[in-house]
């Protein structure tokens, strides 16, 4: 099982952006208070790694609305010349 459905893809991309930018903002404030940009950098890096673990692979929670394929139509005579 290695697909994400469309809703799942949309959600995954949102989660990814939100995660990185929120942690980025938090990291920026923390870094400013501590006067260390290293802190900010590692926050953003950490958020990216977390995002990669959660959003990249096709976990089951991204496949909650699987595409409903139509059933193939039955063919009456399949081997007509």
């Amino acid at each position, binding site marked *: 099982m290695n697909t994400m459905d469309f809703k799942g893809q949309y959600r995954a991309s949102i989660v990814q952006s939100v995660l990185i930018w929120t942690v980025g903002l938090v990291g920026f404030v923390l*870094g*400013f208070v501590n006067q260390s*940009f290293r802190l*900010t950098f590692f926050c953003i890096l950490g958020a990216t790694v977390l995002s990669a673990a959660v*959003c990249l692979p096709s976990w089951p929670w991204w496949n909650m609305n699987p595409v409903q394929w139509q059933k193939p139509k039955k063919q009456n005579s399949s081997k007509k010349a």
Partner: protein
Amino acid sequence: MMDVSDLSSQTLSTKMMETLSTRANTLFCSFLSCLAFFAVLNHLSAYVMFDPTPRMDVLEVEKVFPIRNTRQGDQAVFSFNMEADLSSEFHWNLKQLFVYLTASYVTSKHKRNEVTVWDKIIETVDDSVLSLSSEQVEYVLKGEDYLRDRNVTLRLKYRTMPIIGLMREKVMPLTKTFKLPGSYDHGASSR
């Protein structure tokens, strides 16, 4: 019997379904843009909100050694005392300070001479309080010119080198002018 799933793998995966590589690409772009955004913000915050008050208390020439006249020209060496506090320059966008003492003088051949006689790289706040006494110059004043009787002005300058962004040059207002000896050192060997 043709399966609909054959069609899907052709058209859908090329045009609509994202692949792992596309997702990884978007992730990397988010990472880079977020990092770049906050790095620029970092630089701006340091630029705008920060008002450093560096202090310089002492700049004196301690001893001027006699001028030597070598085949390449005159050479002058001296030692100095200095007390300065640059710790207020440090903020989170600063990577290091390059501090240097320049000596400027005028000679008959060159109307403007400015040389670095001493420099230091300061990377942490703890190192930024400078307290030197009898510090001999690292780089000797030398050249093809005659240096006897010349007035030399010492200035302390430094460059702020950021993690990202613009570099600035700053000069400390306290300067010291002194005069080089008028005659050569006859005791030293000059070839």
